[in-house]
């Protein structure tokens, strides 16, 4: 299975598949895709050693446009599938992609546990505060009062704060990017990929087709990068900035070290495949 290849230098185009993105012109997801290509090129990842896992949504189509291995699963189940891939194959780089509905509505019950386990995954949420694929319904990150076909008199629910969730659930790298700034987003994704543990990257990735409230323009006016003297080692500080009322901050909110799931699990291994017959023989004896 492993074939020794001469070290090769990959160009940006080597990460592009032959499938052309099907997103609407102007969709924020193009910026995310570009940032992913750039991050991979910077580390010169071999495409066959990367797996991109996603759920369902416009955003979750992304694996088709990347030349790596990929898995386009079902709605809300990106993190369980990615967990399986990663725990089975910690030698590969596993990236996970979701929309805000995929991650925080139908998939929320899995996302909190993936973070709690500190799996060595890089999770990119393409957050457009709307359900794009199903043509524009309110999502968990849509603001209160938001009007869509399912909330004709305004959204009665308050928006979920993805960063606060990640910080309190145990993600060890928490960041936010903006798809209008793909170079900086590429740096965040790169840092996430380099980070040992669960990297959570929420990305403002506007849907010009269905979300007329949270647009490239409104985000541009509202966002600001975290100050240069910002201390990302402190969870309380991270939470304060994540929940700031006056600014939507971008950048790395939290960065900490903790043992990863795979490290702990692999430490518990006391044998290998070669021991199978012996182990089974021992079990048979115990029951005889």
């Amino acid at each position, binding site marked *: *299975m492993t*074939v020794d*290849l001469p070290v*090769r230098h990959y160009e940006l185009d*080597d990460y592009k*598949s*032959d*499938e052309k993105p099907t997103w609407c012109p102007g969709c924020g997801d193009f910026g995310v895709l570009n940032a992913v290509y750039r991050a991979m090129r910077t580390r010169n990842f*071999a*495409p*066959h*050693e990367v*797996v991109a*896992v996603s759920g*369902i949504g416009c955003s979750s189509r992304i*694996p*088709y446009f990347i*030349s*790596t*291995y*990929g*898995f*386009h*699963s*079902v709605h809300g*189940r990106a*993190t*369980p*599938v*990615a*967990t*399986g*891939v*990663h*725990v*089975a*194959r910690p*030698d*590969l780089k596993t990236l996970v992609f979701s929309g805000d509905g995929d991650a925080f509505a139908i998939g929320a*019950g*899995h996302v*909190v*546990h993936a973070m709690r386990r500190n799996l060595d995954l890089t999770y990119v949420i393409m957050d457009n505060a709307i359900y794009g694929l199903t043509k524009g319904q309110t999502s968990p990150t849509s603001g209160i009062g938001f009007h869509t076909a399912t909330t004709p008199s305004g959204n009665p629910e308050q928006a979920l704060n993805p960063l606060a969730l990640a910080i309190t659930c145990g993600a060890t790298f928490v960041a936010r990017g903006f798809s209008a700034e793909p170079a900086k987003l590429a740096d965040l994704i790169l840092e996430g990929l380099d980070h040992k543990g669960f990297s959570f990257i929420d990305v403002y990735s506007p849907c010009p087709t269905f979300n007329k409230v949270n647009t490239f323009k409104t985000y541009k006016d509202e966002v600001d990068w975290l100050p240069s003297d910002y201390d990302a080692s402190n969870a309380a500080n991270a939470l304060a900035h994540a929940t700031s009322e006056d600014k939507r901050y971008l950048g790395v909110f939290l960065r900490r070290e903790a043992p990863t799931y795979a490290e702990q*699990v692999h430490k*518990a*291994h*006391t*044998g*290998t*495949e070669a*021991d*199978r*017959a012996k*182990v*089974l*023989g021992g*079990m*048979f004896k115990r*029951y*005889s």
Partner: protein
Amino acid sequence: MVVADPKVTAPGSRHGEVPEHEIRTALVIRVAGEAGEGIKKPGELLIQAAARAGFEVLTDFAPPSEIKGGVSFFQIRLSSRRLHTRGDSPDVLLCFNQEAFEVNIQELVPGGLLIYDPEKVTPRDTSSYRLLAFPLEQIASKELRMPIVKNVVALGGMAALFQLDSAVLYDLIRELWERKGDAVVQTNFKALEAGIKYVQDHVSSADLERFHVLPHAPEKNRMVVSGNTATALGAVAGGCNFFAGYPITPATDVMEILAGALPKVGGTLVQAEDEIAALGMVIGASYGGKKAMTSTSGPGISLMVETLGLATMSETACVIVDAQRAGPSTGMPTRHEQGDLYLCVHGGHGEVPRIVLAATSVEDCFYLTVTAFNLAEKYQTPVIFMSDTVVCVRSESIPMPDLASLQIENRLTWTPPAEGATAFGENEGAYKRYAMTETGISPVAIPGTPGGQYVGMGLEHNERGRHRPDPRTHTQMTEKRFRKMEHAVTDAPEPVTHGDPDADIAIVTWGSTAGVAIEAIDLLAAEGISACLVAPKMISPLPRHQLVAAMGKKHVIIPEVNFRGQFADMVQASFPREVTRINVYGGRPMLVCHLVDAIRDVAQGRQGTGRVVLNPIIGDLDKLVTPDDLIAPLERH
């Protein structure tokens, strides 16, 4: 309470005496008490000792409905012949307390032996059974000054009653308690001795003869395992190296055993946050190249349904164990039913083929789990392995599997063309994950393989794994997925067959009810009524070729433990003809005696085709007190 004569007494029974067997061929013993009295462990020692002595053993454990308190029982059936059910009713009943007496006494066979602790139990209506007072509490507390060893005293008494070699029990006690120090071992030895002595002093040798059952010659290389344990062992033998699951009765044992075993073979077990996640993880791990499995019960399968569709659509090999329990929703977690067949075979939107296997015995749990992995790998498809409460909870003595004789299949993998093993880019498009083939099986690239990059997916796709919703693609891919099933059916394991192949009556069944049918056929043969059995172990796709002969018989009887006759529906869809359905749905297994009556009615023309519903439990329903009625409804789910 004082019992005048603690010897076995034989009061004139209204049902008459138990016939004096020349040599008993089987004996059923039930030990009933409070859950907290820890009756399971001594029961396990007893069966292990019996198995080592050369008995065939088959047990049943009815767990209590509360963690402490509530009545539970442990039932053991011993024989020199292979057993297929736990036995309809006990010949010997040991009761630790009054409640245990109340809920179990009606099931004791007329003329059977009640053993009871006179300090705790006041027997009533004693005319129909024999009595042995066994002052367990007194021996443990007063003589040994160790109330806790009461169970071991009882164990000694049982061993003496059945004339088991006590040397084996001493060995087992040492093995079990060695870690706790010599004092503990010695105390338990004393308790065992006291129990043996009490029975030897108080039971006449004539009475001992009455309950004597002969073992066959002790055989080497046998083991006593539950169906769940056998499933876990089968998983290890089948090459499982990844497991994700969520605890649920009665499947949890599989997960717990694998949690200990997998790290020893470099494998990993993840306790998932729910069953949807468990199957998602299994799919991810299998995509990564592992042999992956999850185990659950009905409620978990219900949650997994959408993800099962993903496994079929993405053509991902995986094994899903469904240890069936009773009832819809939370139902009756510790009770038995064969109610998940429709779900396992048809559950899911769209047309979603998968392979479904069902265990008829504990031994099947081992071998069919291996088969499940093999079929999953070969056909790159989910395989559901169904057990049920009867087979997964009971223990049986089975021959130790011969690992060298097991065939292990591995999936057909894609390897890059020899020359120019290149990374992606140069020969993009060369690899077709879902390539059309005659069998429907396409070589799969394992991530890490240069040039094999593809996207596993639940969307309809073309050969290269690109979403294409056109009619031609969906038609061809649907056919591809079903074509794999056409081939899989030719790999169906051999069915269970029994009885006279020339008989006019065929019993067609599945799962643990096959064992009930085997014993019913044997009893009827003694009456001169002949019948034959076929119970396929692959349920879907249904191996028609295994059923053709039986379905051509004059009478076809399809017994199963559910209301609708789910298997009968499947069989009749494949063989449109009249059958007699026999259904029981009280949360208990079908009884051999009931099936015997039903088959006899068919044989003697009293019952035609249609449906017969059996009373699920022995005795008069109104009078029968079941443990469930007596205890608070806090169950371990």
